[in-house]
């Protein structure tokens, strides 16, 4: 009896220890887990916005808050955030505070203040490039206050980075995302073709599109013969973990 109690206590301790080691990272299913404290740079087009929204939604986990700092220039260039689309990406707009600073300087200030405030699960920013000194400051603030800083960058941007990770996200045919982890502090890297599963809150691998009869109705578009004269852009998919 005593032995059984001790065993139970030991099991609970082990579970707590495992939880603690997991607490610092966000499991993402098919993708490598994301460290919660640190700067993550995500380069890409509209798919990168979606990927960032999804990551932020997962980081918030239904109770945290997210700040999205979008300079007015980005607003004109890429459009405003649209609530229905955010909800579809797994980020509840009610958990979101949007900030529209006029200048890049104000945008970086906003991100740093938000990180230092310690009230957000994720702080998203949009920038033309990753300014080394500001990025370093963001990385330090994010680490010190155990908050994720997500910096959204244009598709083609030089890849010097001071953040924890650097990602590249592009749209793939059939509603999937082509995700590349270009740099990671612990050395992992790779390329994946994934889809967000709103039920399990994980990314699922998508089989190479040619082998699939059709995209799921929930996220992709129905195939049609139209446009067959266009090049079918299928990036090679490989997985290295």
């Amino acid at each position, binding site marked *: 009896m005593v032995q059984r109690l001790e065993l139970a206590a030991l099991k609970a301790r082990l579970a707590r220890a495992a939880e603690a080691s997991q607490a610092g990272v966000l499991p993402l299913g098919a993708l490598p887990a994301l460290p919660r404290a640190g700067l993550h740079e995500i380069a890409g087009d*509209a798919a990168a916005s979606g990927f960032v929204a999804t990551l932020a939604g997962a980081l918030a986990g239904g109770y945290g808050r997210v700040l999205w700092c979008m300079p007015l220039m980005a607003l004109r260039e890429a459009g405003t955030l*649209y609530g229905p689309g955010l909800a579809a990406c797994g980020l509840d707009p*009610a958990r979101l*505070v*949007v*900030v529209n600073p006029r200048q890049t300087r104000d945008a970086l200030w906003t991100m740093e203040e*938000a990180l230092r405030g310690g009230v957000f699960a994720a702080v998203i920013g949009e920038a033309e490039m990753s300014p080394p000194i500001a990025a370093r400051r963001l990385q330090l603030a994010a680490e010190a206050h155990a908050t994720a800083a997500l910096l959204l960058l244009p598709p083609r941007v030089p890849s010097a980075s001071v953040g924890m990770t650097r990602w590249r996200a592009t749209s793939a045919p059939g509603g999937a995302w082509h995700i590349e982890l270009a740099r990671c502090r612990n050395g992992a890297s790779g390329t994946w073709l994934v889809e967000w599963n709103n039920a399990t809150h994980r990314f699922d691998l998508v089989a190479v599109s040619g082998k699939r009869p059709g995209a799921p109705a929930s996220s992709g*578009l129905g195939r049609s013969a*139209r446009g067959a004269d266009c090049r079918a852009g299928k990036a090679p998919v490989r997985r290295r973990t």
Partner: protein
Amino acid sequence: MALIAEQAKRLFVAAPDVLAQASGIVPGQTLADARALTSDLAVAPFDPTAITRAIDGIAQWCMRYTPVTAPASDDGVFLDLTGCAPLFGGETALLTELIARLARQGFTAHVAVAGTPGAAWALAHFAPGTIATSATERAALADLPVEALRLMPETVATLRRLGLDTIGALYDLSRAALTRRFGDGFCRRLDQALGRVCEPISPLREVPPWRERRDFAEPLLQLEDIAVTLQRLIESLCARLAVEELGVRGLECFGFRTDGSTARARIGTGRPSRDPAHLARLFAGKLSLLDPGEGMDGMVLSPIALEPLAPEQPTLTRDDAQPGDLAVLLDRLANRLGAANVFALAPVESHRPERAQRRVAPNTAAHNLRWPNGMRRPLRLFANPEAIEAEAATPEEAPLHFTWRHVRHCVHCAEGPERIAAEWWRNAAPAARETRDYYRVEDEDGGRFWLYRQGAGEASRWYLHGLFA
């Protein structure tokens, strides 16, 4: 020196200065007559708006003495000194200081104190320096000319013709006769001067009942000193607010410079606050507005709106300023970036996609709001749909190609149309009342776009409205 104005194509002296008056120049004289008196008269155009501006500036500056100040017609300022004089060592001391400070700014002030605005106006114009109480007002006014009653020029001329030169001469006349002869307004002016009817001063701004004031014997020159003083003002205001269990929704700080100009800075808070550290931090980005310039010799801090605020629970665990407070952070962002640039999104029941969401103040958005058919809506929406060139097999079908921002996209697959009719009950411009056919299209690289066609047949036009993730 004289200011001149043009009337009926002739130039008149509008305002002569002291030296010009000494040579016999009076307002209303033609410029030619004035030149005959002094050959070397310098002139400048008379600008009524500049004078109004100057008077308003003085009225604002006078708020250092009392919260209730108001410009009086176009040549003076009313100050309600009720209860304020003791703070400055009595009315005489206050007048001396006021005149001296205005003189340093280059103004010659004629000042008087009386129980009514009417009597004060009369004394300031015709017996400056007088301090009359309600008991001595009647006697003080008796010897003043009838002009002192703020009457119409015609009324003054008639009184003079009748030999009624002083206010005292009117005291013994029957009111009925005066009203019959000069009208109702005449007796009201007399009553206002003698305090028989009340004449309220409409203050320059709403009177804040909670003000903190500091005057400096030596003008402050350093911005750091201004910051320290501001901090003290905030602390002492917050201490008073705590007693009454109130919080402010914003603060306005006035700094009075020795050159007569007034510096202003204001902050707002998302919810009531009386946390000195928080409020002081909000001012941090606006301190440059309180630049002392040549020197600042007084500051006033006044709350913009007061709301009840329950006392804080004594915190046992956290003794430092709570960094985790979302409201505090949002206030700081809103004060630096503008309140309109910090917001949350809320759904709106509308068919038009661009109207289906609105901006709300952050921290107020209710949770679990329903966002309509999310999967079929883009992540990014352009506030102004961008015109594109698109080519479709027939005018009723989805496009085969389209060119957006100089880049040509081949449509790999498309879904639609989703017909979204205009909300006819809205009185919009004709173009906005047209029905739109929306298509979700995917190009050969997997990029997903939300396009729509507006108009029918040959006249149809294509737009790009949003981007899917």
